[in-house]
C-alpha cells in the first residue's frame, strides 16, 4: 500500500478542507490518541481506522491503533452479543459474560501503560467495551464509538451492557436513531470512506477488463452486485430470490461478493446456505474473497451496473457509500444508514422485500439514463458528506469539545 498524505486529498476535497484539519489539530498536537477495536482486517471499522490513524499522525496527534487479543470462543460470544444488541433474542449464559470480561481484563493489562497515559481513548464497538471498567482512575477522556444500531437492543443483554457504557465520558453513534440515552454527551458522527484507498481509488479500463475476465463476467449482460459479509442481516438469500425474479424477464448476472472477518464466526454457515441456493446457476457468481481483496471489490463495484444492499438490519452501510462514490445507483433495504444514503429516485431505491428489489432492478435496467443520472448524484452526495476528511474533522472537533468543556461555541 502506498501511504497517502493529506496533500493527496486536495484534488478531491479542495485546499480549504485540508486547511481546516490543520487548524483544528493545532491545539491538540502531541496529544496521545488510542483507538481500540477487535479486528485488524475485515469490516468497515478496520478500514476506517487503517487510514484515519495515518492521517491523524500526520496532523501531529500521537495516534495508536491497537486490537484486542482473543481466541475464537471470545468472538463467538461477542458475535452473539453484537446480534443481541441489534435486537436478536438469544440466551447469553453467565459463563459467556464472565469470559467476555476475562478477555477484556487480560487486554486491559496488556495495554495498561498506553491506555493509562492516553489523552483520548476511542473504544470501538461492544467487543472491547468493558476495558473502561478496568481503568477506574484514568488520565484522559474515554469515548465509546458505537458502529451498530443500538436503538432496540434485546433487554436482558442491554441490562448487562448499559452500566459499562455509562463509564465513558462520551459516546458516538453513526446516526441519531441508532442511539440510546446513556452517556453525558452523545455525539452523532457518520462513518466515511477513503477516496484514495485501494477500495475506492480510480481504476483504468484495462484493469477493469482484466478483472471482468478473472471473475468470468459476461460483458453483454448487466451486472448486479452485492458486496457484504455472508451474514443473515445482509439477506443474501433474498438477493438471490430477487435476481431469479428479474432474470425471468431480462438477461442479467448477479455477483455476491463477501468475505469473513476474524470476529465473525457465523460467516461460514451462511456461505454454505448461499452455495446451496445457487447450485447449478450459471449467472450467479459467489465470490468468497479474502480480506486483502480491496482492489477486487473496487473493480467489482465499478463493473456493476446496479449495486444492491438488501440488508434486513444495517449499521451505516459503507458498501452503499462506496457504490455511490463509484457513481452507481443503489437498491437498498429500508433500514439503518441505508435510508440516509439512498434517496428514492435520486440515488437509488429503498426496498423491503425481494419482490421490491426485483421491481426496482427491472425499472432501472429499462431506464439506463436514470442509472447514469442517479450515479452522478450519488457521487456528489458522498463527496460532500461521507469522505474520510469530514470524519477526521468531526473527531478533531469532538476532542476539542471534550478538552474545553461542554460549551456550545468554543473559540480557539
Amino acid at each position, binding site marked *: 500500500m502506498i501511504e497517502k498524505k493529506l496533500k493527496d486529498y486536495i484534488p478531491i476535497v479542495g485546499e*480549504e*478542507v485540508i*486547511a*481546516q484539519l490543520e*487548524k*483544528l489539530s*493545532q491545539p491538540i498536537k502531541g496529544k496521545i490518541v488510542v483507538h481500540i477495536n477487535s479486528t485488524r482486517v475485515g469490516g468497515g471499522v478496520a478500514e476506517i481506522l487503517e487510514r484515519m490513524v495515518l492521517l491523524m499522525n500526520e496532523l501531529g496527534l500521537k495516534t495508536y491503533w491497537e486490537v484486542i487479543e482473543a481466541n475464537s470462543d471470545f468472538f463467538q460470544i461477542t458475535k452473539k452479543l453484537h446480534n443481541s444488541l441489534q435486537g436478536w433474542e438469544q440466551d447469553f449464559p453467565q459463563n459467556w459474560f464472565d469470559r467476555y470480561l476475562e478477555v477484556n481484563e487480560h487486554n486491559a493489562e496488556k495495554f495498561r501503560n498506553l491506555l493509562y497515559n492516553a489523552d483520548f481513548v476511542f473504544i470501538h464497538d461492544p467487543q472491547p467495551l468493558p476495558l473502561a471498567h478496568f481503568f477506574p482512575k484514568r488520565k484522559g477522556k474515554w469515548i465509546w464509538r458505537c458502529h451498530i444500531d443500538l*436503538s432496540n437492543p434485546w433487554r436482558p443483554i442491554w441490562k448487562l451492557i448499559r452500566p459499562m457504557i455509562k463509564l465513558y465520558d462520551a459516546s458516538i*453513534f453513526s446516526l*441519531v*436513531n441508532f*442511539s440510546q*440515552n446513556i452517556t453525558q*454527551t*452523545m*455525539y*452523532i*458522527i*457518520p462513518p466515511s470512506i477513503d477516496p484514495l484507498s485501494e477500495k475506492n481509488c480510480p481504476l483504468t479500463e484495462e484493469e477493469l477488463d482484466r478483472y471482468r475476465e478473472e471473475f468470468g463476467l459476461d460483458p453483454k449482460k448487466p451486472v448486479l452486485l452485492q458486496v457484504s459479509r455472508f451474514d443473515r442481516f445482509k439477506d443474501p438469500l433474498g438477493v438471490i430470490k430477487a435476481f431469479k425474479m428479474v432474470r425471468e424477464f431480462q438477461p442479467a448476472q448477479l455477483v455476491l461478493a463477501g468475505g469473513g472477518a476474524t470476529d465473525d464466526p457465523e460467516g461460514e454457515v451462511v456461505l454454505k446456505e448461499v452455495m446451496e441456493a445457487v447450485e447449478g446457476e450459471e449467472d450467479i457468481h459467489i465470490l468468497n474473497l479474502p480480506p486483502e481483496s480491496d482492489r477486487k471489490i473496487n473493480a467489482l463495484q465499478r463493473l456493476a451496473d446496479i449495486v444492491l444492499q438488501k440488508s434486513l438490519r444495517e449499521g451505516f452501510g459503507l458498501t452503499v457509500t462506496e457504490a455511490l462514490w463509484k457513481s452507481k445507483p443503489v437498491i437498498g433495504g429500508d433500514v439503518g444508514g441505508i*435510508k440516509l444514503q439512498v*434517496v428514492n429516485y*435520486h*440515488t437509488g431505491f429503498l426496498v423491503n422485500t425481494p419482490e421490491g428489489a426485483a421491481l426496482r432492478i427491472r425499472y432501472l435496467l429499462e431506464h439506463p439514463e436514470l442509472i447514469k443520472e442517479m450515479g452522478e*448524484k450519488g457521487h456528489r*452526495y458522498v463527496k*460532500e*458528506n*461521507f469522505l474520510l476528511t469530514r470524519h477526521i*474533522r*468531526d473527531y*478533531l*472537533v*469532538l476532542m*476539542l*469539545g471534550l478538552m474545553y468543556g*461542554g*460549551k*456550545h*461555541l*468554543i*473559540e*480557539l
Partner: protein
Amino acid sequence: MPPYFQIKDCALVTISTGASAQNLREFCQLLQKVPEESIYSHFYEGLLRFSFDDPEFRNDFAQWAKRALHDSVLAERLGIIDPHDYPTLEHLREALVEIVEDRLYESRYIPWARAGEEFYFLTSQTIVFDTGMQARTPRQLAQLIPKLSTSTIYYHFIEARRRLENKMDDFTFWIRSFGEEYQPLVESLSQVEYYFCSLSELKERLIKTFAPWRSGAIKKSRAKK
C-alpha cells in the same frame, strides 16, 4: 483606520440531546423543554450538517412534519417561519409551540411517526478558529470572498447574528466603520437573503454582492463626485 477583519472558520459536531418524540403531542411537550441551542440548531445548523441537495423545507421541524407525520399543513406552517422575525430564541420557541398546539387542536387524532422516524432533538458543539486570512479594507475583503469556505460564510454571515446587536452580520459590522463611502455595499448586504438558501447559494450571492467592490472602482468614482 478600523482594525483588520480577521477571517475565521468554524466546524461543528452534532450532539444528541437524548430527547425524541414519536408523535406530535410528545414533540410539543419536548419543544417547550429542550435547550435554546437545540431550537437554534434545527433552524440554522442543518446548513452545516449533511443533507441531500436542497431540502423541501429549511428547518428540521417542518421536514419532520412532512416526511414522518405526513402532515403537509403543519409542514407548510412551520416551513415558512423565518427565525429572524423573532427577537429571541425564546420568542421563536413560543411561536413554534403555538403553531403545533393549533395543529393538535385541529387534528382529530394525534399524528404519529412510525418506528425509526421519531424526531430527535439535536444540538452541537462548534469550534471557531482563525484561518490566518485577513482584510485591511473592504476591497480586500471583496477579493477574498470567493476563496472562503462555506463554513466561514456561515460563521460571519449567519452565526454572527447571534453574537452582534441588531442581528448584524460580521461583514456589515466591519464595513460600516469605513463610513459613508461604503454605505451602498452595506445596503446591498442587507438585501442578501440568507435563510431560505443553501450555503453554496449564499456564497454565490455574496460573491455577486461584493463583485463591484473588488476593483475599488465604485469607491473611486464616488470620491470624485
